[in-house]
Structures are given as structure tokens and as C-alpha cells.
């Protein structure tokens, strides 16, 4: 029964992974096909000596941490709001999903236009409000590019945790609240003692998912800045792409992908431990 899927998985996952590990110890440059050969750890030592790679790691950490926190910080309050009863709730539940269902290319280019240095609406509003005097080139300035793209990421990413958390909130049995109310628990206590523990598994799962997705974001960064200017928005994903598909250095590309993989493994291990703790209970 499981044989076909294992076979399928080994083709699309095990094989590429093994290839990737092998290539990370080889010199594989498409521009110099005859130079191929084993180089031991040379790719890795080049990698860690590369200041751009260190920038990419730092940016990835900022990007992921800030991105996940912001996505949850936006999603959680909205989930609470949407859980309350009010007129037009159905409409808002649907409307807030729009960023999530929008094709990523459309979303990225929409934001590129909003950020534009000559015609962008953001600059227009900010100058009208006298918050800035000259238009800011949000995506062309090394100080702002990463955060400008991050805003798009949060906008695009928050509906998923929002929906997940909303579902979890609705699954909390009403009678628990009633019982707590009878026992004299105030509103804060009800949230802290009932709601939060009840939605914690969903929250954990959400966090893992969006951590992985945010960590792996590529198309929005690529479409909006290509990791630039001056590597200011370079993350691990764009770094791998630059190396593998622009410099055609697959050895370096593979070794940096391995570092990415190792970083993701940390997230998975944390989650696995959380899951096993849950089950022990």
C-alpha cells in the first residue's frame, strides 16, 4: 500500500537530497564542465568566509523571526475579532483571505508599484501628510529594502494563521466558558486559562508552518528586490539562487542549500519535541 508513495517520495525527495549533499562536496560549475571533482569541505569554507553569505544568514534570521512574530501578531487579534459576533462577519472572514489567495507575482508587483519612487501611492500619502519631504525609494535603499519586502510578506502571509486560529477558537467548547463564569473567572482569566491553552496546539502548528514558509520565501524577495541593493535584502534563498543559477556554481549553491536545510531542521526538531510532549500527556 505504501510502496508506491515511498517510491515516489524517494524520487522527488531522497534522490535530490542525496544529489545535493554530494554536490555540496564537489566543484560543479556549469561554466567549467571539465573541472568537476571532489573538493572536500572547500565549498563550505568558501561559504563561511563569504561576507555576503553572513549577510544572508543575518537577514534570514531577521526576516524569519520578525516575519513570524508580525504575521502572528496581526493574525491573532483579527482571529479574536472574527470570532466575536457582529454584522457582516462572513464578509470580513472572506475579504481578509484575499491576500492569501492572490497569486504571489500579482501581490509582489502590486507592492512594487505602491513602493515606487516616482508614482507610488505610499510616497504620495506620506508626502501629503508631510511625514517625508522627498519620495523614498523603499526598495532601492539598502536601509529599507528588507523591511519593505517583509511588510509584503506579512500582508501576504497573515490570513493563513488567522484562519487556523479562528478555527481553533471556534472549536473551544462554549460550556467551558460558562462553567468558568459560574466559578467566577473574569474575562482575562478566561482567556488565559481556557482560550490560550485550547488553541495552543493550533498556534504551535501555525508557527511551525509559517516559520518554514517565511524562511523559504523566495518569489516576493526575488520579484521585488532580487536580494538587492547591495545584498541588503539577500536571504538564504536568494543567495542559493544567485550562486546556483546566476553564477552557475552548483557546488556552492548546494552547500548553501545544505546550510538552509540544517537551519530548518532546528525548527522541525523543536516541533517534534513539542508534539511528543503533547502526546505524553
Amino acid at each position, binding site marked *: 500500500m505504501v510502496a508506491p508513495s515511498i517510491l515516489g517520495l524517494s524520487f522527488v525527495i531522497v534522490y535530490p537530497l542525496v544529489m545535493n549533499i554530494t554536490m555540496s562536496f564537489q566543484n560543479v560549475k556549469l561554466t567549467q564542465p571539465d573541472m568537476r571533482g571532489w573538493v572536500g569541505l572547500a565549498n563550505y569554507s568558501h561559504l563561511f568566509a563569504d561576507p555576503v553569505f553572513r549577510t544572508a544568514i543575518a537577514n534570514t534570521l531577521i526576516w524569519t523571526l520578525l516575519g513570524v512574530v508580525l504575521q502572528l501578531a496581526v493574525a491573532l487579534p483579527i482571529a479574536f475579532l472574527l470570532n466575536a459576533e457582529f454584522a457582516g462577519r462572513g464578509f470580513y472572514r472572506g475579504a481578509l483571505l484575499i491576500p492569501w489567495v492572490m497569486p504571489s507575482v500579482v501581490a509582489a508587483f502590486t507592492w512594487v508599484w505602491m513602493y515606487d*519612487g*516616482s508614482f507610488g501611492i505610499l510616497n504620495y500619502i506620506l508626502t501629503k501628510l508631510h511625514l517625508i519631504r522627498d519620495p523614498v525609494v523603499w*526598495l532601492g535603499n539598502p536601509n529599507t529594502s528588507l523591511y519593505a519586502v517583509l511588510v509584503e510578506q506579512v500582508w501576504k502571509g497573515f490570513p493563513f494563521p488567522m484562519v487556523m486560529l479562528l478555527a481553533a477558537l471556534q472549536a473551544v467548547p462554549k460550556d467551558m466558558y460558562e462553567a468558568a463564569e459560574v466559578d467566577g473567572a473574569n474575562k482575562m482569566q478566561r482567556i488565559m486559562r481556557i482560550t490560550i491553552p485550547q488553541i495552543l496546539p493550533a498556534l504551535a502548528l501555525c508557527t511551525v508552518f509559517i516559520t518554514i514558509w517565511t524562511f523559504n520565501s523566495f518569489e516576493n524577495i526575488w520579484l521585488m528586490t532580487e536580494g538587492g541593493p547591495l545584498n541588503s535584502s539577500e536571504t538564504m534563498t536568494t543567495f542559493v539562487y544567485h550562486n*546556483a543559477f*546566476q553564477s552557475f556554481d552548483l557546488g556552492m549553491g548546494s552547500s548553501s542549500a545544505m546550510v538552509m*536545510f540544517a537551519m530548518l531542521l532546528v525548527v*522541525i526538531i523543536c516541533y517534534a519535541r513539542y508534539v511528543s510532549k503533547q*502526546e505524553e500527556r
Partner: protein
Amino acid sequence: MRKIVALLAITTMTMSIAACGTDSKSTDSKGTGKDTAAPANKPAASTGGNAKQELTIWVYDYLAKDNNSSLVKAKEKFEQANPNIKVTFQPTVYGTTSYRDKFVAQTAGGQGPDVMISDVVWVPQLAAMGSILPLGDQAKAVVDQFYEGPLQTVTYNGKLYGLPWEASPMAIYYNKNAFKAAGLDPDKPPKTWDELHDAAKKLTTGGKFGFAYMGGWGGSFDWLPFLWQSGGELIDKDGKKALFNSPEAISSINYLFGIVKEKLIPPAALTWKSWDELNAAFGAGLVGMYQSGAWSLDSLKKANLNFDWGVFPSPAGKQQATVLGGMDWVIGKNTKYPDAAYKWIEFITNKENMSVLSDFSRISARKDNKEQAIFKDPQMKVFVESIAFAKARPALTAWSDIDYKVLQPAFLKIVLKDADVKQTMDEAVTQANEILSKN
């Protein structure tokens, strides 16, 4: 059990994500070895000489938009003359990522087109990778029909890797109405660096700007004409030493990026990465002048701009110079019909088919291109005459690397971080020399 399933599921998911960057890579390690897909692919081809030979050809998408395209018509003519060859165009969006990288990845995986149009600057790299085939002796008969500059772009290590098709020098587009409004004579466009700078300054007023460039790439392409105008060079003749920290080169950097720092270009230009953006900014009247090739003519003409515009040749620093862009025809290494493929590229680059390029307002790389109909067009004339002093970028494998990893960051540092020009370029030359020594 639930634990294990959950773990498996999540590991699978991350792996597939972490590995997705490697998917196409793993295929090419297979491809560089042996062409595993070949036997399964169209076995009919081997059954006899009369079987239809199918050529898949990549062309820039705008060249084959519909059946009225003159390139498509030329294809039909070719198929009539060669009934045993069937040509299929695959219109592909022009761009380093969308076109070149896609070709490299597909070819490395044992696939890829039989023939394609290539940007002149990609050919040496593709040749070094072995993803395109050198032409046989039959090409020797036709080479002297092409201009030297374009021919250089298909020559790598002394071998011919394709035939030149289009030659595009850059010149400067200018808004004649804006010139008048700024008190400049539109019939006497700038001829020297000083005049160009002065014009840019006068045109920059009231939210409009004098000049523009592709700042997203650091402006390295826009800078090349100025480098050569200054008498500077990129790399020495042996391709071993970078020369862009020479006093001449520094003067050209100071000149172009001085214009940028003086804010004679729109701030948004710092993110521009495509000709479309430049064309649009010019069309909207935001910029009074910008450098581009004949490739911008068509879209500007179609846009029916509400002002008068023209083109003037690149100005002279120490000398007049500009950069040569354009298209070549090359043969993919996985083709099963190299002879049919060659037949096509010889056909499409021959004299009769120069008119295909005319229809797209492009200049043929052929020496007899004076006979092209477009030569009557006054704007076109500027480009045609510019070929005389246009230079090709160095035919080096390392050129893209030097451009992307050294020049562009250096220029961005100068513009965005106000880095010292001389020091930045000294560092850039050291980095470039290191790249050159590895190739």
C-alpha cells in the same frame, strides 16, 4: 503512531522545500553525463532520411507574437523550401533569469531547444559551458558577410558558435518639447560631455528629470559607453587584467554617477531594471533624455507620445563610443539535427531575411544592411551610424560574474553609500582580477 506520521509529514514538507532549489540541479548532473532522455524522445527520427526533422526554436516572445509576425512568415517560407524540416517556435520572455538561465538548466538536463536567439553577451558563457555547439566548416563561407563587432560576439576561443543577426548600438533618446521648454535647441542636441551634463541640468526642473539609467543593475550597462568615450578599457587584450580603475575609467564613473548624485535622474531609477521602465518614464515625460538602443524605438512609436522626440548619437568624451547589444543565433547542444539547425540559422541571417529585422525596427548585423528599408527613418539612421563606433563587451566567460559581482555592487556603493570612487574601483579591480585568474 500519530507522532511518527506527524513527524514524517513535516519532515517531508521541509525537505521538499529545502530541496526544491536542488531539483533542477540534480537533473543536470545526470545530463552532463549522458543524454538519458534521448532514446525515448521521438524515435521516429531515426527510422529514415525522409522522416520529419523537428526543430524547436526559442525566440524572444515579442518576435513571434502572432502569425503576422515577419519572423513567423520567414519560418513558413523556410518550411516550404525544406519540406522535411518542421520548425516550432517557443516564444520565451527575454531576460537573464527567464531566458538564459532557463536554457542552461534545460540543456544541462538533456533537453532544451535545438536553436535559439541569444543575447550577444551570453554567447561566450554558453560556449564555455558547452551548452551550445560550435558551427562546422560550412559557416566559414558566410562569415565575411557580417560586421566585425557582431562577429566577435559569436566567437569564443577562436571558434564560431553561432551567426550574428542583429546589431544594436545605444544612442540617446530625447524629448524635443522638454528641450524647447528648457531653452535648449532640439535641433542641436548635446555633442560633448559638458553639453550633455548641462542639458541634463536644465531639464531637471519641477519634478522632471534630465537623465535616467537602469539603477537596479547599478548602471553598469549605461556606463559602458561613457567608459569607452573616456578612452578607458574594461579588461586588457589577454583577458587577464581588469582596467576599470584607470584615470580615464574613473573620470567616466565620476561623470555618469555625478549626474546621478546631483539628482538629475529620478530617485525611482535606483530600482529600474528593465527597458520597459525606462521607456515608460520617458513616455510619461518624467525624464528628458535616456540611453537605449533601437529596441526602444518600436514601443515608443506604438505609444503615440504626445510630444516630439528624437535620437542623438552618444556624445564624445575623448572620443565617440557606444556599446553594442544585439542578438545572435546559436545551436543547442542537445539537438538531434545539427544540420537542419544550421540550415535555419543560415537562412534567417541571410540577405533576403534582413526585412524580418526591419519590421521590428532593428538593424541587421550584415555588412549589406544599408539595403534595409528602415534606413530612411531619421531616428534609425542615428543607430545605423553609431555602429561605426560601437564596441562589444568582452567575450569572456567571466564577464557576467564581473558585471554582477564586482561592477554593479561597486557602482551601487558609490551611489547609495557615497563610497570613495577611486578606492571602490581599486577594490573592484582586485576582485575582478581574482575572478579572471580562475577562468
